[in-house]
């Protein structure tokens, strides 16, 4: 598999996970189902990856939602993340619960350094799971561009940025989020979503580390 293709797939996957963790409004769910159906058709080539089982389970679950409406999902979302707030969907909820501004400021800095800012029309804070997942999607998109241009230096730089963001932010707290969702939601929709996302992100971090290790070894050999 070409690294550019893999990065594009990862870009789509991060975006899909991020959007699935936003409020499940009907219009949003309709487009999620459409994307899931398309990705489902392309997923057989991913069978060599350890996240395959959870990934396909997640896509199948989304596709099944087409006919079932959003009422139960909205109820589950409200119960878990909004009204009863059993599980915070924010990094600060896990890492700096007494000082959320600290995490948010740090993330604003990270996004700013990449030339991005959270749109004022967007209602969620910068440490919301969806925003962090979307940011990873953005980084993967940039990585795909680098590989397409055959720029090894730029590709490695992008991988390093992804590894840094996962290690300092997203993967520091997402496993705990997935664990808490599983505890509160049994085998419900959001358990499947967060479990699949956890498996995917964890795998991504390890894969990026393995790639970087190889590139650094290669660089030191050529020096």
């Amino acid at each position, binding site marked *: 598999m070409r690294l550019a293709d893999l990065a594009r797939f990862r870009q789509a996957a991060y975006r899909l996970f991020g959007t699935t963790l936003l409020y499940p409004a009907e219009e949003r769910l309709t487009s999620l189902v459409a994307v899931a159906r398309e990705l489902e058709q392309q997923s057989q080539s991913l*069978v060599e990856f350890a996240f395959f089982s959870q990934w396909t389970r997640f896509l199948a679950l989304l596709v099944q939602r087409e006919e079932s409406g959003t009422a139960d999902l909205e109820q589950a979302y409200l119960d878990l993340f909004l009204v009863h707030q059993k599980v915070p969907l924010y990094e600060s909820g896990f890492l700096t619960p007494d000082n959320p501004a600290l995490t948010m400021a740090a993330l604003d800095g990270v996004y700013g350094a990449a030339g991005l800012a959270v749109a004022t029309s967007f209602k969620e804070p910068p440490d919301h799971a969806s925003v962090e997942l979307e940011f990873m999607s953005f980084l993967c998109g940039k990585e795909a561009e680098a590989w397409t241009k055959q720029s090894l230096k730029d590709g490695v730089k992008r991988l390093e940025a992804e590894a840094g963001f996962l290690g300092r932010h997203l993967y520091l707290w997402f496993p705990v989020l997935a664990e808490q969702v599983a505890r509160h939601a049994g085998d419900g929709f959001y358990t499947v979503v967060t479990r699949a996302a956890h498996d995917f992100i964890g795998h991504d971090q390890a894969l990026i580390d393995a790639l970087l290790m190889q590139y650094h070894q290669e660089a030191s050999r050529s020096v």
Partner: protein
Amino acid sequence: MAVFLCQELETRGFGLDLEAIREWFRGRVPELGMRIEQGPCCTSRWSLDKALSDGTGLVLGLCSHAYSVPEFEAQARKVGLDPFGVEVVNLGAYCAQVHERSQATAKAKILLEAALASVGASPESRPDNIKPVLSWDQTLSRRALFTLPPVRYEPVAFIRKGDCAFNEGCRVCATTCPWQALEPSEDFMALDKTRCTGCGACVSACPQQAIDLPGVSPQQINAQIATLLNGASLPIRPRAIMFVCARSAPTLQGLADQGFSYPASWLPVEVPCLGVVTPTWLLQCLNLGAVATGVLPCLRDDCRFGQREVTKGRVAYCREFLSGLGASPDAVRLLDPGDEQALARALGSLPEPREESRAGRTRDVALFAPRATAQALLGLAEQFAPSLDFALTHPYSPVGMVAVKEGCTACEACVRACPTDALQMDRGHEDVALTYEPGICIGCESCVPVCPERVVHVEKVTDLAQIARGRRTLHRDTEARCESCGAPVAPGAMLKRIAGMLGPEDAGTLSFITRYCNSCRGSLT
């Protein structure tokens, strides 16, 4: 769960009676799915279909290990199976090719049953306990740098935070890891996956059994060994356990291919690396009825453990211990994978089975320290030694012996550092006592550097009499009580120590400190 058997096993070597195996399992586990067809070892057209498994686990009994692992793993994922939840047993090399048909069939039943027990106890593989390994070519072309090479997965250690004693100060796994893959972070033990080789040394060292490694997690190994020693009442007696480094498994295949034979009593247990096999494992197997235990290491330069001398040392300890008891040291063997003839000879004979064998009597099998160690040591002493008057000082002793010299102030620093609770502080009304249970001391020396008085010492000694004696007092002191509220102030030696530090010019302060507890001092000033 399901079992798949390659049909070529029927004719391979002396052959296995596959129908007899099917019938036997049908009687024991009626719900078990079983299929007998050509396996991936014999045909490239083999495919894993959903009907074979309900997703809870699968055991493959194959003619050999000659099949594509990544291809098999991909097939497993396709049908929703966790590839690390599948056990592959090389029934060709371990049974059909080396034992006559009835013995080989009986042994195959035991091995399959043990594999099922292991699969049943297997923790699910997660992104946290596996790592992708990229199979790059040695010489990379520029084009290759833009392509993802084939990915395979290797198991790595995973610490269950809820069971880990990191916050109580335990660092045993970090000090055991030969690759510095485990490093204390702010509030947990962090694993650097890129450094972890999956040798399993931390798994068996962890006194809390808080570390999983797909394939050798504590529940899996306990279940597997219990079944091998106590499972099916089959005519394989006596039984001996051979821990085989997975990378050395081809040696046994080579032995079989060359027509060497050895007693069917040897039951192989494949582990990712012998770094996980401790003296406690080796001795506990003997204690629970095995007539011998052996370890078959790898000879590769890239040994996952990288410390073959430790494996040798562990075996040497076991042999010396057995000698000391008056038992045959030959019951624990370090096997040589480099010389097939010598290996066949080493496997060819077994010690005489004991009359009072425990085989089949003990259901509750535990191989992991600390509790299993004392159980194994005392159990073997009961079987072999005329008395418990035996002590062995050895660098690979699985137990230690703590001594406290004069000068202890009962500050409890050692108690807080002890990961197994071998050291405890008992507080009575009048006095305090530092107590110690040698049988659960793993000799980790965590208590030594934390002692501010430098009076704690640990020796790597297996002292049976002390272990049998159980908990005892190492140090006793009076406890001063608050004149105001009666609460404990401090042990007498601690107050003396403070007096020594303050000197006579601070007699007033000292008197105040000695007479009142912390909270009363606050309210009185």
